[in-house]
């Protein structure tokens, strides 16, 4: 009796026990399926389980996105992306960054602080016109005054000071100013599978709001840099 991993052959032996053996050959975690088959089952489960609610639409949330697809697969496999693939994804996201049309990168840090405090917007209990927050404090320490901050992201306290930014308009500061804008607009341009949302790219924050958050981080007068 020939024994291949083909399930078809296993079926032809008409034995349930052999069938399990056939299905299990090179399969994932004894589930009897290959990883690709499990991905397909998962897609079906998603399709059958989730429904639109309020402003949140199934078609948008699960829309095909090469960045999400690659990073999700890497997490399931428990392996980081191959460095070359990570570079490709970062380049893909870099292209999406919308740089300020007027060349002005810094807005009002006080408005930036308000945005950083707010975690509102885009849930199924929010309205379409609920102003989106930046969700910044949920994951980052930012000012010394706010002690209720999360730790999923690094501390941003003294962000500009540590990086030696004394005048954000100076030529020496341009590299860090641009990086800060880009990171907020699309975090995945710098770290393919970053935990951070792509605030500009996904339309969570607009250009003026990104400007205000850049100011919160880089304006020497901002409490971040005191």
């Amino acid at each position: 009796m020939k024994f291949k991993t083909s399930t078809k052959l296993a079926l032809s032996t008409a034995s349930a026990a052999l069938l399990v053996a056939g299905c299990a050959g090179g399969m994932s975690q004894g589930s009897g399926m290959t990883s690709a088959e499990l991905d397909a089952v998962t897609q079906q489960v998603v399709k059958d389980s989730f429904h639109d609610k309020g402003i949140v639409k199934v078609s948008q949330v699960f829309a095909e996105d090469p960045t999400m697809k690659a990073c999700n697969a890497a997490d399931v496999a428990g392996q980081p992306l191959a460095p070359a693939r990570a570079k490709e994804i970062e380049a893909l996201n870099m292209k999406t960054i919308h740089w300020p049309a007027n060349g002005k990168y810094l807005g009002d840090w006080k408005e930036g602080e308000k945005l950083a405090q707010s975690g509102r917007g885009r849930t199924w209990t929010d309205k379409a016109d609920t102003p989106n927050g930046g969700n910044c404090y949920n994951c980052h320490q930012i000012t010394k005054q706010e002690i209720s901050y999360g730790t999923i992201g690094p501390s941003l306290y003294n962000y500009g000071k540590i990086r030696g930014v004394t005048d954000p308009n100076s030529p020496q500061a341009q590299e860090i100013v641009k990086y800060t804008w880009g990171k907020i607009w699309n975090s995945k341009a710098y770290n393919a599978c970053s935990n951070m949302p792509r605030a500009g790219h996904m339309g969570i924050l607009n250009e003026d709001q990104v400007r205000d958050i850049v100011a919160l981080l880089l304006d020497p007068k901002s409490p971040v840099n005191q």
Partner: protein
Amino acid sequence: MQARALCLAALGVLAASTPALAQKTSTQAIEEYREMLQDGNPADLYEMKGAELWTKKRGPKGASLEKCDLGKGPGVVKGAFVELPRYFADTGKVQDLESRLLTCMSTLQGIDPKEVIDGKWGKGERANVTALATWIGSESKGMPFNLPQSNAKERVMYEVGKRLFFMRGGSHDFSCASCHGEDGKRIRLQDLPRLSGNPGDGVGFAAWPAYRVSNGQMWSMQHRLNDCYRQQRFPEPGYASDATVALGVYLGVNAKGSKSIVPAIKR
């Protein structure tokens, strides 16, 4: 694709036959609150309601749930909670506690599952299921989680749950793992357990149903997952849908050996 279809079909056949340093963290604050409430967790009220609902003759069939099979045989409640979700031969499905209760309410009492599935949290039959889940959970208090993985469908659901756990999407690119993928992290001051591994006794999967102090509500696991998905900016998962059951399998199997503290008390 053909191989997959065959594999799936065949498995179906088989299955049918077989901190910030200075400040107080939320954990510390809740610990203190728990101590204060040791003699009176408001969850007790839901627990009592659940115990009554189990023996009460209800529904179009005027029957109790005492013959309900939660996985350890008809009427066996003790120890059932820490082995769910699991595969049930009569429905051919992997079910969590709440989806199993829907089956029992439907078959024994004639109560339409739609009353729960299309219902609202804390209201009507959905509130009854939460109370039942609270009582059934409490009957396994202190017992270690030990979900079966002997059935192929249970193993498939684990793998599906894992994929759902790591599935980023939506406007914010969030997955379950965005918040629950690393040890020792917080959102604001809220401590976050890492649920891709075993978070320990009474943490994560081993802590729901729980009474939530902040809104004065009793939350089941279905409610907990539902609100996680809301905050994740995902669409709503159906009540007792396969996605929620698969996540339950993933979290429950990961928690193997950890002891249940249900009914817990939470922020």
